[in-house]
């Protein structure tokens, strides 16, 4: 029986044959390979190719079963498009062969010996099983495949959590569950991560930011560990091979080609748990590297379009990796935009963090643009309208834009200045009280005219020391990376608390625990968007390695044994995230003005020192008290308690005089980092001595100001 839906369409019939294959002129958009009635439509752009052909393989076959040259009349403008009928999409691998001049000085690097991967491939084979040795003689290493895009999303939709309410958790798909202690069914995969969602819910984060999941080659690192001789990997994945394809090696079902479904199931489950999913994306360079690198896709299709080239045809290198994507070329802008739209619409992704995003505002000759069209386009795009956009606002060539990244009222930034000042202040450096206050208030100096969500606050990230290492090492220890400890940053602002590396001293270990709690407390009580590094909540160590990009082993993996071993720290961080969620006064979108706009008798934020209302901004000061008035929460629209955060980075204890609260309210203790645990929400006991607090050395106290509750007991 023929239903109206199945009625044959005119364009579902071939018009001619090429060899044994029936074809017709294709549709130019969308790019890539897309199933159409009776066949598959292939579309590829190349401005300078003199000819283009479609190369077809049976899955896994070393030799193609067909190569179909695009007839000249199948080319519209610079787009070659052809529908091929009767193909088995499930078992098909395809690529393109582009011919044209090899004239690097003119920007052309065509090489007709290569089969090229489709830049718009939605699925890739060749590296489906993480770390499995491929056939290096294969003429086509990264094979484009046709994807099924029929996932059943059910009722899923973006969560739309306001930026100021986010607590971001930066993690790595593989590293989170690859450790043998993870106890999941499929360690190191999307499915494994899905099993850990209850842990993340309990931790209190409501957004996970995943290190790159676009297909990359973990085997493209030629180095070995000089001590063990083990192969080193491209573990982090900042070397994209294919921008539309999820990493198959992160999927337990990747060998069956179901990585997209597995990843989508993960996103769907995260959303059900109230957790958004953000992707770390790398548009500043590709896996093709410099002129010595492999020709995979872009270089062979249209080198001069996709890469920024000097007038002599050499690669500009603003990324530190040999090549730089030509992001503000109109065709490349379209590529980036299409890619992000695809991940939002097809994978329900909630936001993106852009690696070395300053490159995205460089002109084709590398000059920073005052009004970069790509950034503007992303900011106003209708599909990305409610998607979170976060810039790593610098690049490897010295363009540092923290505080002035072109933002169009939409872009947030990783606030590297927040990271540095928190590290330095907690370590005990003098002269930082004023800057710490500014950073805790959402960095209004940097983000004037923008909301506080412009500042993504963090102390640690994948790149650099973990929190535990930040308090255990004065120097980096990257010998295992095989670069004579020359790689990784040197400006760590770390302090080992008296002993380098693991310590048998109870005093040193106590101090380190306190310092970790201090930084976590500042992070989770500061205005802006806090971001935690996975594992910091349980004191994960990388043994002093601050650049584990290549370490696919225990150095990088989340050791789940730490959940019990460092239960105290974990409990403390859980309490802090709960505290942040419970206190909207900490999460204002607007920067505080420092005035009393609601008639509460207190300004929305006030600063204090050893004496209330007398902050000590002098160079030798290491003490700061911050009082957030609860009546001002969310611009005075919601009720909240007052919150006081007292920080003592001095090596001696101090008595802090507390600001007096209006209307018979009194101070209650939520947490003191020199004590064992935080008090449960709402059960914070009132202070013994209401007007002052004895704060130990290297400690932070968090107090809640509310009506006196006679039912709560006095602290012992």
């Amino acid at each position, binding site marked *: 029986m023929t239903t109206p839906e199945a009625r044959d369409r005119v364009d579902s019939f071939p018009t001619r044959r090429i060899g044994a294959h029936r074809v017709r002129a294709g549709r130019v958009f969308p790019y890539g390979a897309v199933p159409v009635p009776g066949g598959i439509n292939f579309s590829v752009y190349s401005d300078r190719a003199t000819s283009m052909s479609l190369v077809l393989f049976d899955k896994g076959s070393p030799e193609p079963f067909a190569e179909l040259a695009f007839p000249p009349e199948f080319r519209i403008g610079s787009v070659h498009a052809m529908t091929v009928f009767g193909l*088995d*999409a*499930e*078992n098909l691998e395809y690529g393109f062969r582009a011919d044209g001049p090899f004239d690097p000085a003119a920007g052309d690097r065509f090489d007709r010996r290569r089969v090229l991967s489709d830049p718009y491939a939605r699925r890739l084979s060749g590296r489906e099983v993480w770390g499995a040795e491929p056939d290096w003689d294969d003429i086509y290493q990264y094979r484009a495949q046709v994807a*099924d895009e*029929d996932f*059943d999303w*059910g009722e899923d939709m973006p969560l739309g959590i306001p930026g100021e309410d986010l607590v971001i958790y930066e993690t790595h798909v593989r590293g989170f569950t690859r450790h043998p202690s993870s106890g999941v*069914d*499929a360690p190191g*995969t999307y*499915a494994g991560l*899905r099993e850990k969602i209850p842990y993340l819910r309990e931790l209190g984060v409501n957004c996970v930011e995943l290190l790159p999941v676009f297909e990359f080659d973990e085997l493209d690192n030629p180095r070995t560990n000089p001590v063990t001789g083990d192969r080193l990997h491209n573990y982090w994945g900042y070397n994209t091979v294919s921008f539309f394809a999820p990493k198959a090696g992160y*999927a*337990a*079902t990747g060998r*069956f*080609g*179901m990585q997209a*479904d*597995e990843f*989508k*199931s*993960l996103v*769907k*489950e995260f959303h059900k748990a109230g957790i958004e999913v953000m992707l770390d994306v790398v548009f500043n360079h590709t896996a093709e590297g410099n002129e010595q690198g492999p020709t995979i896709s872009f270089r062979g299709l249209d080198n001069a379009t996709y890469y920024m080239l000097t007038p002599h045809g050499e690669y500009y290198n603003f990324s530190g990796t040999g090549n730089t994507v030509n992001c503000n070329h109109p065709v490349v802008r379209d590529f980036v935009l299409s890619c992000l739209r695809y991940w939002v619409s097809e994978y329900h992704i909630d936001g993106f963090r852009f690696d070395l995003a300053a490159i995205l505002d460089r002109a084709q000759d590398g000059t920073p643009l005052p009004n970069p069209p790509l950034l503007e386009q992303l900011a106003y795009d209708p599909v990305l309208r409610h998607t979170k956009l976060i810039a790593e606002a610098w690049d490897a060539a010295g363009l540092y834009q923290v505080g002035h990244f072109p933002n169009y009222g939409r872009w947030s930034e990783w606030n590297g200045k927040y990271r540095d000042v928190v590290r330095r202040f907690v370590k005990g450096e003098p002269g930082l009280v004023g800057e710490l206050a500014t950073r805790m208030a959402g960095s209004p100096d940097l983000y004037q005219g923008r909301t506080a969500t412009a500042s993504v606050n963090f102390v640690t990230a994948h790149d650099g020391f973990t929190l535990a290492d930040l308090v255990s090492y004065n120097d980096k220890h990257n010998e295992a990376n095989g670069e004579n400890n020359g790689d990784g940053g040197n400006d760590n602002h770390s302090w080992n608390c008296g002993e380098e590396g693991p310590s048998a001293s109870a005093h040193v270990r106590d101090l380190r625990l306190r310092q970790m709690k201090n930084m976590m407390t500042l992070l989770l009580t500061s205005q802006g968007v806090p971001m935690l590094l996975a594992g910091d909540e349980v004191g994960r160590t990388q043994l002093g390695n601050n650049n584990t990009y290549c370490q696919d082993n225990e150095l990088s993996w989340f050791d789940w044994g730490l959940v019990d071993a460092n239960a105290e720290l974990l409990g403390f961080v859980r309490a802090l995230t709960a505290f942040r969620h419970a206190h909207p006064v900490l999460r204002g979108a607007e920067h505080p003005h420092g005035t009393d706009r609601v008639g509460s008798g207190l300004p929305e934020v006030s600063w204090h020192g050893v004496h209330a209302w007398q902050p000590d901004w002098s160079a030798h000061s290491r003490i700061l008290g911050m009082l957030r008035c609860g009546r001002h929460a969310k611009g005075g629209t919601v009720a909240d308690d007052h919150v006081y955060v007292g920080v003592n980075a001095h090596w001696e204890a101090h008595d802090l005089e507390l600001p007096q609260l209006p209307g018979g309210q009194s101070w209650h203790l939520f947490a003191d980092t020199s004590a064992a645990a935080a008090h449960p929400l709402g059960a914070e006991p009132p202070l013994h001595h209401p007007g002052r607090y004895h704060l130990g050395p290297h400690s932070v106290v968090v107090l809640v100001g509310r009506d006196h509750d006679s039912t709560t007991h006095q602290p012992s």
Partner: protein
Amino acid sequence: MTFDARLRINDRVATIELKGELDAKTAPQFHETITSAAQAGSVELVIRAEHLTYLSSAGLRSLVFARQHMGDGTRIAVVGAADSVARTIRLAGFDYSIDLVDA
């Protein structure tokens, strides 16, 4: 083994017995069987998978097709799938659409 999808309907419970390999080539035959079950007004669909020797990604999608075609009110159970098949269904997240049941 040649693919076969045999439908029995008993008191509004439709049972489809699968044999052989369910992949892109054989999925349309499975879809037709599902359509017949839906047209019969079944309230439960039982897919016997003991003799299913292979399930490709296209085969897995047919289970979702069944879910969508039968409507939310219909319980769909895949019974007796081999361990490897059942595990793949679970890891890819298809177990959200159907119930996986031991034989």
